């Protein structure tokens, strides 16, 4: 399990998928208590991170120009 990555740097998809792996890992009866605690705490952090992303999410819209550049679009959604 990749624990090296900082939770804050994960995308929603990455965080969610890691959380899924952690739950699966905990379900598979981890014998080492330390490891279980670490997994659990990491899972808690991931869940918080996911929740925060959903709260803050706002659609970003850019426009592709003729030359293939991207420019910010004044929002109209």
């Amino acid at each position: 399990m990749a624990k090296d990555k900082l939770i804050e740097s994960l995308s929603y998809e990455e965080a969610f998928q890691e959380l899924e792996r952690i739950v699966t890992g905990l379900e598979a009866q981890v014998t080492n208590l330390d490891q279980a605690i670490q997994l659990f705490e990491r899972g808690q952090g991931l869940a918080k991170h996911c929740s925060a992303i959903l709260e803050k999410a706002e659609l970003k819209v850019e426009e592709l120009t003729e030359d293939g550049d991207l420019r910010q679009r004044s929002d109209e959604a």
Partner: protein
Amino acid sequence: MDQLPLFAESRVPWTVTDLSRFLRALIESEPLLQSIWVRGEVSNFSRPKSGHWYFTLKDRDGQLPCVMWRSTAELQVRIPQDGEAVEVHGGLSVYESGGRYQLYVDEVRAGGDGALFLQFMRLKEKLEAEGLFAAERKRALPPWPKRIGIITSPSGAALHDMLQTLSRRYPLTKVILAPAAVQGEDAPFQLTDALKRMNQFVQPDLILLARGGGSLEDLAAFNSEKLARAISASQAPVICGVGHETDFTLADFAADLRAPTPTAAAEMATPSLVDLDTALFMLTQQLLRHSPFSLVRRERQRLDEVSLRGARALRQQAQVLRSAFSGLQASLAALSPHAVLERGYAVVSKADGAAISRVGQVAPGESLQVQVSDGRFGARVEKED
């Protein structure tokens, strides 16, 4: 109608009126004739003071008298001209005092579509034969698209609808718009060019190609061979959302997925926020259930109740769900191992790390590890109690 058997068997002649009535009832009882489209050329168009329209629909060998009542005629945007090819819709009946059948028209549309439709069918068959529309060419859509390309008119309602839908359902994504005319002479080129640029410069996870509804003529750009080929060559999967319920365009056939409207296209492209919330909520529940701490296990029943309540709530709406979720976050924080240790509890484990929860697990003289809130220390078992 009931009189028919009597008369039919009899040599007593029918009155003209009876015959007309009988024919009228016969025709009006046939559903097929009560809602039909007929095409032909307008002639003898007249619009007397009454406001009703009278005209004859002709083709090479036949004529059909037509009437449009004033209530419908008043709503028509344009008045048919003699000689014009049209398609009319209505129900057939008998005009008894005139002794003729006629069509009571409720809709008129330009009849140029006939030729256009033939052209469409020929092109469709050709591309079909090349395998452009084959089912095995259709690609699966990414479940959580990070970047969505949109190709449509920058000023149309279609764009507005799609952005609203994406913003509501899945604001985690980023939208890249490549503006293009969706009707007019230049539209096929602009649409094709936008599609190519999108693939070349942006490489989005998927592309929405859309416009609002219109007549077959309005949709001509979406029936162009060039665009159909560009869609099938697109690296990113394409969802085509042209606002028309019944007719398919060639772009629809070439796309990986066809949606009936721009809004539906945006919906097909994304998971909904409610679904994501639900999934996260469920997963967090599972995490709690497998917490390594016995204290958490004792709380489990209580949490299950929260979970059940939450599950019911989230079926209703995301907002309710969010509050249930933050409540859970709070419970989770309260149950954190650190909080427990802060209160003076300790985790005692063997040298190999196995946690001790029974007296029988240890023997006098054995070395153990004790973890408290700020660290750990060693200890030795003296004797069993």
